[in-house]
């Protein structure tokens, strides 16, 4: 039985109106209805965090939300950060410190940390480690991610 709802959602500043099945995940809505394929799905049970996006500014696992839950809300995905020609400071710090290898988990980390640095502009190393521990990366061993976050936070503080 399909159970379709009309929703209106703002993604990266652009408003979209679409009909979605009630059970369709936000991740699928973003990726396959709207084409924001930078959001990746790594576990579909809320542990790995690869699918992290910001909903009204707060990090959310888009695999654990339904599309209908963002009706009337604002979503930010990795595509809202910098562009290849103009990386955001956090993205620049990731490339400077080799904070990514295969790049699959990376958008989730970027969104998680973007929200974190907005809320905690001058984090301690322990706070950084704690927030980075929210998501899984299988390639880096995390220390390059930790360095990238430290550098991005320091750059904000210094600018």
């Amino acid at each position, binding site marked *: 039985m399909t159970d379709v709802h009309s929703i209106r959602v703002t993604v990266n500043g652009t408003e979209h109106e679409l009909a979605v099945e009630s059970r369709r995940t936000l991740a699928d809505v973003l990726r396959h209805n709207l084409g924001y394929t930078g959001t990746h799905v790594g576990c579909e049970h809320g542990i790995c965090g690869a699918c992290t996006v910001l909903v009204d500014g707060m990090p959310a696992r888009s695999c654990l939300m339904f599309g209908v839950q963002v009706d009337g809300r604002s979503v930010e995905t990795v595509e809202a950060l910098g*562009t*290849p020609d103009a990386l955001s400071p956090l993205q620049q710090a990731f490339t400077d410190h080799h904070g990514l290898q295969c790049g699959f988990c990376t958008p989730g980390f970027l969104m998680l940390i973007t929200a974190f640095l907005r809320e905690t502009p001058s984090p301690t190393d322990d706070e950084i480690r704690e927030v980075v521990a929210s998501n899984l990366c*299988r390639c880096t061993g995390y220390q390059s991610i930790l360095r990238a976050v430290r550098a991005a936070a320091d750059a904000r503080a210094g600018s």
Partner: protein
Amino acid sequence: MPDAPGSPAAVAAAGAAPDLPVVAAAVTPTAGGWIGRSLRRAEDRYLLTGRGSFVGDHQAPGTLHLVLVRSQVASATIEAIDASAALRQPGVATVITAADLAGVAPLRGVLARPEFVATDMPILAADRVRHVGEPVAAVLADSAYTAEDAAELVEVAYGELTAVTNIEAALAPGASAVHEAAPGNVLVDVTPASSPGLDDIFASAAHVVEVEVSTGRVTAAPLEGRACVATFDERTGQVVLQTSTQVPHTVRTAVALSLGMDEHQVRVISPDVGGGFGQKCVVAREEVLTAAVARQLRRTVTWVEDRREGLTSGFQAREQFYLVRGAFDADGRVLGLDADIRCDVGAYSCYPVTCGVEVLMAANELPGPYRVRSYRARSRGVATNKTPIAPYRGVSRPQAVLAMERLMDEAGRATGLGAVEVRDRNLIDALEFPYRNVMGASYDAGTYRESLARCAELLGYGSWPGVQARALAEGRLVGLGLACFVEPTAYGTASFGMRKMTIVPGYERATVRMDPSGSVIVMTGTHSHGQGHATTYAQIVADALGIDPGRVRLRQGDTELVPHGWGTFASRSIVAGGGAVARASADLAGQLREIAAHMMEAAPGDVELAGGRAQVRGDPATAVPIGELARTAHHAAHLLPEGLGRGLEASSSFDPEGTFSNATHGAVVEISPSTGGVRLVRYVVVEDCGVMINPMIVDGQVAGGVAQGIGAALFEELCYDESGQPVSGSFVDYLVPTAADLPEIEIHHLCTPTPRTPTGAKGMGEGGTIGAPAAVLSAVNDALAQVGASVGRIPVRPADVVAAIAAAGGGRAPGDGLDTGAAPGGPPDGRRKTG
């Protein structure tokens, strides 16, 4: 970004990374060249901005979603499959079973040697299932949601059989046979070494040390699971399979064989790959199935693995047992080594490397960096009703090193020499290279003793006894562990041929093509999935041609575009792929010199290429931009004599003889005697992989590898209940380490360039994973030795530690302040050393 999913252009473009600058701004090359510099990666900009292209990103309109009905029992006959309820669901196109796949051959990995029993891995199970999660039927529907629902409605009637779920049960007399072809469940049984006189050596040795180690079943768990999209292209008559793989050409071979097609009728495209670590270097039946169904239905079909499938049905690894005895003389020098090794290979043999991959490597490489002159080993691969194994980063080396290092630790205790001295006396010395080991392998030069000395120094080994004693007095159990190893990398065809596989990997081929603008396209059969080849290959090309690496682009992952090659696994790419790239680049540089020499009326040998220009050596007035040479070669070839220009391209292959990286890893742990928890306090790596093309990338590989090794040492295990049900089907149960679980990994380099590769680089992608379990276990046992306890199994679970301490008498040494808490009794650790 909304793309144009599924259009032929999108499908074709999926294999090629977008053109992006390697470095943000033009950088002036130094006299030292580009090799050896930590350039930012070419791949990063598009991956960081969500512009990557992973298989699961592509869902063209009209795509059929394939969801598998998988066996819920470990061993059974299939009595009946009733798909009628599923077929009645709106949106369900069809349900495919083995009966619908007539003419699709099973995957059959073969070693052509008498010690190996070949078995088939069916694409869908026909009359028999051999592990939970085995694919039984495929539901195809207009959405993944509909297909998931319908899959639950497919009724499979099983006639349950007794499952064998561990090595002991499988080897027991009268055990049920997983395969009729192997009544005793032994699929591989090799004795690759049997030195004469070994029993006499043991009989007369001053010290005989015996250790047992066992290692839990783990899996690579790349963050991107496996995924496929297949179409049938009527224009070309090709099955086009996009798949998340490390080995596009090998997948093409398998699909072509299974579907009975010529290889040119199958095109395999692998765009960005979200990690592989070996799991994607073999061919999965889901890849063949997706291609077969797309051909049969003439529809676009996609299968995207979910994490539960990945953890229960994706290839697994490393469930092994070692019994190793070492004979040592009075000075602690090893005289002989005797090993009995058993690997639980699961229910099927993977293609193409077979279930022998762990079994052979375990026995062949056990002696490692040590001067072992007499050696006997038997190694068996035992079939069980569990998910099949495949290579996982390091394959058997993490376990073999674990066994050898435990032997060395015990020998250090038995002889009183300690961990460093006993290793140092047995490590191959710098003066002995090239060293031919007891198995016939020829090690190129390395820094075995130097890396040990450096690592021990960095860890403060000299003052460790005092540190440890003071900690104990404070009620803290701390331990320092070491692991020395050699990492054989980049086997060539000669080495792989000795395994007797029916297809023999090893070489790599590269085409380097300069366009009329002076930019370069590199095409190789290796397939970077995080290793940064777009960057490192560009550095190699840039040095050879005297151009900026930003002018070099990599094309990979499309069997239609790139030369035949073997993909990225076994720490081979920078050696085999990079070697082929270096050779082809040198050839192309020669062509450029000849064109320049003609234009300058100079001798080719006097022309140098640097800084984007060609000039007569020492005479800047003669400088011509390389772009001008390229333009001339293509657009004004009439100015050149015949045989020069008329295109600018070179292809070359490289078939490495094998090269050997080495490292020592060191770990410091603190153990909570009451909870059994192990906390890593320090982790130090001293490694030597020869010339580093890009040190930043090398460090990234080491750190990531160590993290996986620590995961295997302390956290990760795929558990099964006694009926063969997997019970680690989520990341809640299968504990991939997080940032909170890992220490800073301190990485130090030694550099012994190898003469065996064009660049002097050795492979190094697996080393981190190889050393870590042994270093961690060594540290744990150094800590536990203070209370007379030890453990011999990884992952080292808190309960194992508590039980070991309890078995050793509660761990309360006279006068110490150790809080052993309410340690549950539990059985004594049956794996303790007996030496």
